[in-house]
């Protein structure tokens, strides 16, 4: 059975939801406390949403120094799947595992609302089960979700197909409508929307399943 580690920082709050998302797809989820340095035995790692270390200073700024992040860095360097959702995406950018940064939303308010995403690339552990051009309704839930980067980085992202998801109707002022990016190898992905919140029509949308299915299935491809 696929084993997914869900990293819990003090202040994380979407860890149960992320675990629920992957277990609904048949994987096994285990919480990994932020002081842990051993990720052996895991097939994939999720950095869930929330407010790690209170988001004080900047979102992700203190979390990147948690002991677990060194292990996450090695895990990623080995080519194994790492997914950062929302606050997890912010942590991955602060840690330098993904390019760019997340700034405050254009409207300077927190936004919790459904968004429509367009799949831009399937060359990532998150989007491998989706199709290019597919539209997915998935909610966002963040204050600092406006993706930003310099021109050179943007050029590289586009050239390498690292932009994996875009907003159809940009809610937060993200540069070039970017909602999610991958590293060059495609095994590290971050996105601001919450696929684990879109797993069931009872709760409004099941469009997140195709993304997490890709992630849970990714280790097979990597191995």
């Amino acid at each position, binding site marked *: 059975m696929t084993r997914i580690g869900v990293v819990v920082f*003090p*202040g994380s*709050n*979407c860890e*149960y*939801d992320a675990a*629920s998302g992957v277990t609904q797809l048949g994987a096994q989820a285990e919480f990994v*406390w932020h002081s842990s340095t051993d990720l052996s035995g895991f097939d994939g790692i999720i950095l869930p949403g*929330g*407010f790690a*270390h*209170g*988001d*004080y200073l900047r979102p992700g700024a203190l979390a990147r120094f948690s002991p677990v992040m060194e292990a996450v860095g090695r895990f990623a360097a080995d080519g194994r799947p790492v997914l950062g959702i929302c606050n997890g995406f912010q942590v991955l950018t602060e840690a330098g595992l993904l390019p760019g940064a997340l700034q405050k939303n254009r409207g300077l*308010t*927190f*936004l*919790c*609302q459904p968004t429509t995403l367009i799949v831009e690339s399937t060359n990532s552990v998150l989007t491998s089960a989706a199709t290019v051009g597919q539209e997915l309704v998935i*909610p966002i*839930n963040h*204050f600092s979700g406006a993706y930003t980067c310099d021109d050179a980085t943007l050029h590289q992202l586009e050239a390498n197909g690292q932009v994996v998801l875009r907003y159809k109707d940009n809610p937060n002022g993200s540069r070039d409508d970017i909602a999610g990016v991958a590293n060059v190898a495609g095994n590290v992905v971050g996105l601001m929307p*919450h696929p*684990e*919140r879109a*797993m*069931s*029509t*009872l*709760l*409004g949308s099941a469009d997140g399943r195709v993304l997490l299915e890709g992630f849970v299935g990714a280790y097979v491809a990597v191995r």
Partner: protein
Amino acid sequence: MSSAPEPLHRALGLTDAELGDIRNVLGREPNHLELALYGVMWSEHCSYKSSRMHLRRLPTEAPHVLVGPGENAGVIDAGDGIAVAIRIESHNHPSAIEPYQGAATGVGGILRDVFTMGARPLCVMDPLFFGELTDARQRWLVEGVVSGISGYGNSVGVPTIGGELTFDDCYASNPLVNVLCAGALPTERLVLGVASGVGNLAVLLGSSTGRDGIGGVSVLASAGFAGDDGAASLDDAKRPSVQVGDPYEEKRLIEACLALLDGGYVVGIQDLGGAGIVCATSETAARGGVGMDVDVTAIPLREPRMVPYEIMTSESQERMLAIITPENWPAVAALCAKWEVRASVVGHVVEPVVRQDGTSVGMLRVRDGFDGEVLAEVPAKSLADEAPLYDRPRRRPADLDAIRADDPTDDEPVGSPNDDLLALLVDPAWVYRQYDSQLFLNTVVGPGRDAALLRLAGPGLPHSERGIAISTDSNPRWCALDPRAGTALTVAESAANLACVGATAKAVVNCLNFGNPEHPEVMWQLSESIDGMAEACNGLGLPVIGGNVSLYNESGGSDIDPTPVVGLLGVVDSLVAPPPGWNWREGDAVVLVGTRRAVGDQAHPLGGTRWATGRGRRGGRVPRFDAVTLAGAIDFVAAEIARVCAGGTSDVTAVHDVSGGGLAAALAEMVAVTGVGVDVVELTGHGELFSEFPGRFVMATSDVEAFSVRAGAAGVPVASLGVVGGGRLRIGTMVDLAVGDITVRRRGALEVALALD
């Protein structure tokens, strides 16, 4: 010019008679610290001394009630081995001074009330009341309060799933910020705030203690508290009366406390809210019938030179008091260390003192070191439970009859119903978009609808297919005209909201926001309102399981309109499919379910409606509360929708309760959300367009004949309104509006009023 200094007890808010009571309790003169402890514990806020004798008239019992009023939160058995804890509170005055922190700490406080019971907080709702937004200060308050709720609630990780938003000039100087929290726990894990077991330890968890929230007591500095305690040497500027919230600390505190409870390490636990350590220690000791020794030097402080009365009464946020056995201390300390939560032993449970007459009494002793000097020694129960109760004078307002006689129902309609209707439409999405309403993957119906509906699921809970629904409601416009009928109808309105998501109401919590109880008219309003609530709860079979009373909501001698807020908790037995909501479809028949005319001598009263108050008309009369009529319609609708939630087939495609703005607004809201128009028959004048009495529902059905047969069998009236379709909302000859105009106007109304556009 000089005047005699005010006696200390009066500066502490105690009357001369109350000082006499304290002397009787102690059998001696209280020292300054003891007087300060009584001052905060016998305050209106802590003791409910003006309202308690009236609150006793509320029904509080039902077989499913596990914990009723008087504990940190009410608890019901929701079935499947799951209990639901619920609580509502006000944070009105702090929010008026510093809206962000006032609202934020209100959220923090209510969460602690709920996880104190062993429940994981699953949702928050926020009824908010401000002055009209034409005033810049009101816009500042709204933005501050909403961002405070958002900033704290989202970060601490509890979804905010609804609330209310009311604008009225009576709140201009005194906004109301109420907050409700519900949580769930395995039924067998229920814990209470009781200290027991002599020799057990009282452990303070969480933040260090500063001078937060002791502004109320800061009069001490000018009242000659000087001398002994040296209080007067402190600079007034160092006495912040505003508490600052830290959601990150609270999040760790929640996780640590729930882990302590999971581990079975805790005998009793209590949050620290108003009146801080003195309140938590005296209440837990009083409930357990034991004594408690508290060492003021053991309490971690955030600021230098704090004196005992400040330490004991500080309202610093994010603190809990746990009672544990000494053997468990190492495990408790280790668990708290993992969550980076400070834990300090600050007290010991001690034997009650046996008096000469053989009775035993648990004493709260404040000591300077565990073996040190006793700084204060008072019966714990006298602080917690024995404040004097007042039957304050009540008087029906002299001008009430004149106000009721000035009835807008009799007015000739002026102007265009189209414009009147558009002016009533406000989409609160600007507010609730700022709240995380989805965390924990339970939110089936979120903010902005009749009621919120959640799956009854969460970490550590047994599996269940049930759902819980919550609605918060108030109608100060009704209650100003008739607090008794107004409050009763408010309860009915809330039950009707629950029915729209298929839920049957199980329990009520209330937050009674009123003016100055020393005004006899305000006490009359409070007493009438409580009678109305009792009538409605008895009539609908609902227990009141908790509440909060907020008095002194006044400014410049002018009281707010009586604002009893109710929160109703309901249960849906099987929740596998979402309720239909407002989503009617082209071709559906639209019907009005429930009585078409109000109970009473006016068919379509306009007194107290939003339509009338929008025209500056505040007079008129309120319909009667009739339990049989209301319950018939409410139960029928709840059963119809519950069948949809259970996954059954149904011809019902939409349902919406008729409330603020009346039938016309209900129809327009459904048009706005679906983008599909409707053609409605002629109604009986602007009265039927805008009248607001509860027990009526707009429903859409794909098979109106079958629907009418079921309603007929239930004895519930159904009137045909029209057919869904087209690009316009037409109501007879009175209303004719394009769907797009309705949608745009409703969506932008709040942002335009807040001058954000």
